[in-house]
């Protein structure tokens, strides 16, 4: 829309647009930046009154304390335990839900069968049932099965929770692949299964990555169900761990910020990795029916 010689009024418009966009985005990013900065500042600066706005010193104290490396402070949060639990659960549930969800997504994208739309809708609606409604009956069931405080039990729940969104994404990604290619494979004598493995799946690999990342983050971030199903320190995942930290001890804002930073790491890595696919993954299906 904007090209060639620009009239002065238009130029002013452009400058205004750019400035406004920067202001909005900085306002949006500032709270996040503040959390990260706080985690790296000395405690004396944080509690200072009047407040010190610009950090003068960078320190890793908060992290050292958290992992028990500070000899003067008794370690108060089992961060390593939470980390290992969260990672285990997220990895197991991501692998399984992506494998199962990709198969279903392929079936929805490529095959016509009875109740096609109904089945798809049913799957989506299962996603909209809030965790609050699921966690309590699941807790009772898990008590009977002896799965409370069991990492596999939580992973199992997360698999089911992640499937609908995986199917929605993979259905879209498979639809993007021209059917001609698959058809050509059939003509060359490939079975459905071979066509899936050799043609469609490799082409949908970027989509698979996106789906895996969404599943991982959903499991990594989940709080409601985890806080009901993992009650002991040994089984607790990161989000309930952070919550317990904010409730239980004398208020240590910096420690909590440091914990938040650790919790953000996978998300940061993944957002950087998937910037492009993210937008595509979320929006197609908008125009293609």
């Amino acid at each position, binding site marked *: 829309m904007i090209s060639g010689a620009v009239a002065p009024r238009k130029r002013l418009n452009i400058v205004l647009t750019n400035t406004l966009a920067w202001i909005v985005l900085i306002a*949006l990013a500032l709270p996040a930046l503040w959390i990260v900065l706080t985690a790296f500042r000395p405690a004396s600066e944080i509690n200072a009154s*009047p407040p010190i706005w610009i950090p003068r010193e960078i320190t890793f104290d908060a992290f050292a304390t958290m992992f028990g490396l500070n000899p003067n402070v008794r370690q108060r949060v089992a961060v390593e335990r939470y980390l290992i639990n969260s990672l285990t659960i997220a990895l197991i549930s991501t692998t399984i839900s992506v494998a199962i969800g990709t198969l*279903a997504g392929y079936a929805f994208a490529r095959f016509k069968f009875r109740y096609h739309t109904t089945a798809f809708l049913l799957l989506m609606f299962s996603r909209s049932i*809030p965790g609050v409604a699921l966690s*309590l009956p699941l807790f009772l069931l898990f008590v009977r099965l002896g799965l409370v405080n069991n990492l596999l039990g939580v992973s199992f729940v997360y698999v089911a929770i992640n499937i609908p969104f995986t199917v929605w994404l993979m259905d879209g990604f498979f639809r993007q692949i021209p059917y001609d290619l698959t058809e050509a494979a059939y003509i060359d004598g490939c079975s459905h299964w071979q066509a899936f493995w050799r043609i469609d799946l490799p082409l949908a690999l970027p989509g698979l990555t996106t789906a895996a990342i969404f599943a991982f983050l959903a499991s990594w971030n989940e709080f409601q169900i985890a806080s009901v199903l993992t009650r002991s320190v040994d089984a607790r995942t990161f989000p309930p761990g952070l919550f317990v930290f904010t409730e239980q001890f004398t208020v240590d804002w910096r420690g909590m910020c440091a914990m938040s930073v650790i919790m953000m790491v996978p998300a940061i890595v993944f957002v950087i990795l998937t910037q492009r696919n993210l937008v595509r993954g979320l929006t197609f299906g908008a125009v293609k029916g």
Partner: protein
Amino acid sequence: MILPSFVLILIVTGFPLLYSIYVSFTDYNLLRPGSDVFRADIMFRNYERLINDPIFRRSLGNTILFLFVTVNLEYVLALGLSQLLARVTKGQGIMRTMLMIPMMFAPILVGFQFRWFFNAEVGLVNNALLSLGVTQTKIAWLVDEPLGMIAIMIATIWMNLPVTTIILLAGTLSLPSEMYEAAEVDGAGAWQKFRHITFPMLAPFTYIALTIRSLDVARAFDIVRMMTDGGPAHRTELIWTYVTRLAIEDSRFGMGAAMSLITVVISLFFTVYFFRQLVKVRIVQ
């Protein structure tokens, strides 16, 4: 190929749902074994109690208000921001990265962050307001009415703005430029172009954004639990926090189940509504 997905979902969501429906018609209390027996004479007791429960009515009202304000405000803000970003000439890439920053925060982290910012004693917001001389006294953000609800709404909007904006931005950038050129030839102004081209053409993207959003409405629970936990005196009680209080803290499972079914209905209503709109606009185009 679809079977494994359905079996799993049946176990993890189908079973709890059916069980909740059953329990909601009993007077099940976790502390009283054997109280989960169905009795026809008291089957609607939980629902009667809920209708007459002023805290429930308050939490329901709060939830509706909360959803109405956040979803609408979020959409309008995202629409504005996406139009702004579509016109930016320099630094689009870095701006998009900045836009994604809130997406790195889990809901529980968003809750923690704003709980700290709105803290009356050491919070960023009060510190800033005091430094700028806007206020002389410390404002009890998370305590006063209606500031508590406003704080929670701000946190929720902050968390959801990026996804909505990104979807609308992708939609805006995918619109064919010929239409704009034609409109310009006809002498249409910026507002007219937005009103008659951009906005209607964005409809499928709007409903995708709202469908995705509606799948996650209940994630507001994490934020509220962290910021105020429904308090003080139920001022910020949402239906999700009240369910948790009744069922987990008070062990009143039957009552909690009855109420969680109401949350399911709210979520389903949102999803069905937006999804149907999405299907409709898809067919029109």
